[in-house]
């Protein structure tokens, strides 16, 4: 039982950290202009990649 709880906790942490860390650090930092322009392309790239198996 505790194994499962630990597993649950670990999985939650693993999916939460990649969302939180960039928000936490990058929102305090001034980013170069080319990087911001590159980030603009991300939504189109991610969503079309998610459509791939279809």
């Amino acid at each position, binding site marked *: 039982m505790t194994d499962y709880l630990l597993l649950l906790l670990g999985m939650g942490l693993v999916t939460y950290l*990649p969302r939180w860390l960039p*928000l*936490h650090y990058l929102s305090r930092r001034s980013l170069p202009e080319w990087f911001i322009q590159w980030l*603009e392309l*991300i*939504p189109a790239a*991610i*969503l079309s990649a*998610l*459509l791939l198996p279809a």
Partner: protein
Amino acid sequence: VVNLRHVLMSSALAVYLRAAHRGLLALYAYGVTDESFAVNLPRFNARDWSLSRALVVNHAANLTWFISTVAGGIGGRFIPEGALGIDYALIAMFICLLIYQIRKLIHLLTAVARRLNCRGPGPIDSRQYLYRHRFRCRRHSGGNHPTEVDEATCEQ
């Protein structure tokens, strides 16, 4: 590895969330999903959005997800397989979200390039791709509404 896309998504969002409260930011991070990201980012980009509104979007979506999952777990057995074209609903949603993102020509180019890139003609890739298609065909041929496209791929 697939989860690394959330790193990219959060990075893209971070551009618009300067000087945001750290606690709210941590709460916000909990609700970053493909769907809420696709809704929030164009709003932030149009400069008519705030963190509090984005928080509402994220957690309303999360709550709906949670309730629907429980409801589906209990009531899912009453829905026949392939009924109402449900298989297609998720794909349709992602297509809508993708169209929502394309504001400039460069975005369209990125989407197309990404697709071409993904469907690389390597021997292992194409075999996996075919296998997946065959699996889908088998599933569909048993269903009630096989579409034209699916029949065409079945014949191959």
